[in-house]
Every structure is written in structure tokens, then in C-alpha cells.
């Protein structure tokens, strides 16, 4: 973990996601899942959060120049923010379409790149926002009601 803050409001976890080593993709999501389990959050909700963070982690690793995942756990809500350092998405509406993908052969060999990641994150979360500036960054914000 790269940082862990806890106060009366809740817990904030922040993890850096790299891009060089595909074999460790999923470690961050695995850590987040463990924390949620320790907090005795409902298993079905944990599963939805785990799927969404893992899809996001895979995306950061295969598409971006690196980034981070921030998890904020407050009383009735889990907020997840994923932000990368670019290269950004030209057309986010197109990227949200099922089946649209710009993934590399390498990503496809790992079992990804089917163009299902972003729609799946939207399906799993209670609130989903995507924002991107081409050439700069992509930021996803998801909310889950506890």
C-alpha cells in the first residue's frame, strides 16, 4: 500500500498501479478486496467492487502510462477513483460501447481486450463517471452504496 489514512470520516487507501509487469496485475485489487473483507462488508458488494477495481487495474496496466487507484470507505458508501497519467481516450462514448477495444495482442493473450471492461465497471457500480483529456489523463469515479 502506498498510503493509508484513517479518521472519523472513514478510510482512504491509495495504491500506485504500474505498467511494466503484467504478472502482478491484480495485486492492488486483491489488497483492496482483503481490506473490505476485514471490514465485514457484504460479500456480494465486495465482489462487485473487486470486479470493478480489477477491470480498472487491468485497464491502467495495459492502456496507460501508469496511475493510481484510490478507495474511500465511508459509512454508507465506497468511492473508487482511478486516475492515470495518459495518454487519454479520444472518444469516451465510443470506449464505453460493448466490444470496442484498442487493446494490444499482449493484452488479448492474457484474456482481455474484449471491449467489456468499461461497460462491466458501469454495470457493477451504483454510480459511474468517466472523464478523459486526450494527451493528458483518464479518470474514473465509481460509487457503491453500502
Amino acid at each position, binding site marked *: 500500500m502506498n498510503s493509508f489514512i484513517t479518521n472519523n470520516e472513514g478510510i482512504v487507501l491509495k495504491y500506485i498501479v504500474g505498467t511494466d509487469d503484467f504478472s502482478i496485475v*491484480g495485486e492492488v485489487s486483491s489488497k483492496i478486496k482483503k481490506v473490505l473483507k476485514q471490514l465485514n462488508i457484504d460479500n456480494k458488494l465486495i465482489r462487485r467492487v473487486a470486479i470493478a477495481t480489477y477491470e480498472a487495474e487491468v485497464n491502467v496496466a495495459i492502456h496507460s502510462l501508469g496511475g493510481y487507484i484510490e478507495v474511500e470507505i465511508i459509512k454508507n458508501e465506497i468511492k473508487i477513483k482511478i486516475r492515470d497519467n495518459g495518454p487519454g481516450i479520444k472518444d469516451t462514448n465510443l470506449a464505453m460501447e460493448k466490444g470496442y477495444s484498442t487493446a494490444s495482442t499482449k493484452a488479448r493473450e*492474457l*484474456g482481455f481486450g474484449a471491449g*467489456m471492461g468499461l461497460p462491466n465497471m458501469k454495470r457493477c457500480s451504483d454510480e459511474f463517471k468517466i472523464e478523459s483529456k486526450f494527451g493528458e489523463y483518464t479518470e474514473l469515479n465509481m460509487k457503491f452504496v453500502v
Partner: protein
Amino acid sequence: MKISKVIELINGKILIGNIDDSINYAFSSDLMSDVLAFVNEDTALLTGLVNNQVIRTAEMLDLGTIIFVRGKIPSEEVVDLAKEREMTLLTTNFTMFEASGVLYKNGIEALRISYE
């Protein structure tokens, strides 16, 4: 169905795990994106992929049993990752079609998936 019965039906081998565990459902796919998008219940996963991401995908979905088809055997690193998560890993020389067919014929059910 007990894992021991699964092994017998698909002429498989257990790599790690417990032969007394059991499975009721199965989902077959080489595409982890689809596993993540469509699996909502506890199920066994049949796949020909043998990398870390198969274990990670199973972990996120709380899946306990993975059956590697077409004679695929994961590396020690991949097996270790599954071992830490107390998963059961099997391997069979059957194709995905045959392994799925034999299990289905003997009572393992398919997941009903939704297309939202």
C-alpha cells in the same frame, strides 16, 4: 458433484486442492473479460488460459475451482498464487467442448447469464 467424480469423468488430474469439495455449476471461457462480465454465482471455471490473470479473475469472483483443458498446466508461480487462495486446480487432456459436455451430461448446470 464431488471433485473426485469430476476428475473421474474428465480423466483429469488434481494439481492442488481438495477432492471432497464439490461443484454444481460451470462456465467455460478463454476470455477473462467475459468471465468477469457474466459470472455472478459460484461456479467452476473451465479454461485453456494458464496465466496469473486466470487466478486473479477467479479470486475477484470468489471462484474456488478451475479446470484447465487441452492438457494445459500452469507454471509453479501460477499454482502458488492459487494455493494462497485455497483454490482447487484440475487439468484434463479433454478439449473445452468435451470436458464441458461430459460434465453437463452428468448434471453440472450452466449459468444463466444476463445481457444488460
